[in-house]
């Protein structure tokens, strides 16, 4: 499980926690999130996210 961070606003996506409020279940890998997904805080697309730690 990895943690990813939005390069624009600092929003963090933790694969362990998922985003239940966005319909993304805990344990969902970054790779499995739809390409059309965008950061809920700033609207940045999946491609612009950056991994901060493993």
């Amino acid at each position: 499980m990895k943690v990813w961070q939005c390069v624009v606003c600092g929003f963090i996506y933790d694969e362990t926690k998922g985003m239940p409020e966005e319909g993304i279940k805990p344990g969902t890998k970054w790779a499995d999130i739809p390409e059309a997904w965008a950061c809920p805080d700033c609207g940045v697309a999946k491609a612009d996210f950056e991994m901060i730690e493993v």
Partner: protein
Amino acid sequence: MDNKGIVVLGSGLAGYSVIRELRKLDRDIPVTLVTRDSGDYYSKPMLSNALAQGKDAAGLVLTRAADMAAQLGIKLLVDTEVHAIDRANKRLDTTSGALEYDRLVIALGADPIRIPVQGDAADAVLSVNDIADYARFRGLLGNKNTVRAELVEAHSNEHISTGSMRTEVAIMGGGLIGCEFANDLAAAGHAVSVIDPGPWPIASLMPEQAGQQLLAPLAALGVDWRFGTSVSRVDRAASGYLLTLADGAQLQTDLVLSAVGLRPRIALAQQAGLAVNRGIKVDAHLRSSDAAIFALGDCAEIDGKVQPFVLPIMHAARALAKTLAGEETPVVFPAMPVVVKTPAHPVAVLPVARDAVGTWQLRSNSDGVKMEFIDAEQCISGFVLTGRYAAERNEMSKQVGQRALPV
């Protein structure tokens, strides 16, 4: 055309975002970015919650300047001030020499507003508007801890509570940034006071019932709220500073942080004869009164509105990138809720104009509030979600513009 290319002024979120979006469409147009800063890329919204993330200023840098330049294929002029824009010759006068442009993008951001205070330490009031300011602030926060840690060591036989390790920070301004800093500092164990002449937290964006939701959760972290008053004097004390408030109260503090708002940087544009108001006036294409000059971000006033938040910058950057790549594209803003990073009591708000006609309607209130702004046409045109409702912001955004349910 475009042999001189596009010149972007400012390496903040607006400047870098427009280039990042442009490069998705066009790798070839020459782009030069001019910045008075180091050009390192960081996320400004993280400055007010870096402690919670366990990051210092250096840790907030996401990408070094040289790597940004290489990734984006741009020329980067760092530590460079622009003195003047010569519009007739499309040339900039900078501390690194003259620079010609075909099209210019101004993304210079905003300056912190400074409220005049009396006292012999008035110049000790800090503001944190960029990563260099943040490094200075954290240095002062850290120094205090070091000094006290040494004291603790020297008196290691005595019991000294962890409370004495705190730095006392007085924050001028209980708006969005003031509240975010208050939460971040208090959660890290510092003693925070918030002084604001307004009536409740984040009063410029939220109605009373919503703003008041922040009082208890932050007080539980130790935040000392002082509403309805302001700082009149800052004087040096034996240790730290003595603040005198307009209501006569006095406060002892180690640091004073001002977070009372931002003023768009318009001086360069104004001096060049561009149309300015509160910000640099641009139309929906982000174009100023000079067809070759564009502006976005905190320095811009788009169709009469200054919107100093992340989401409007992203939408503006995408539209402007298309226009710069050759496809004239106006920016269309959807409902853009503002997220307040106060983990003690999270908030998402879609603010309404100060003169908006309508009423705030309370829909739910347990562990937070859910409020809708219902306008004259009985439609939802704003909302506030606090506490456990904050997570509903995307759902709520979809209801904006629709008819409100009967009360």
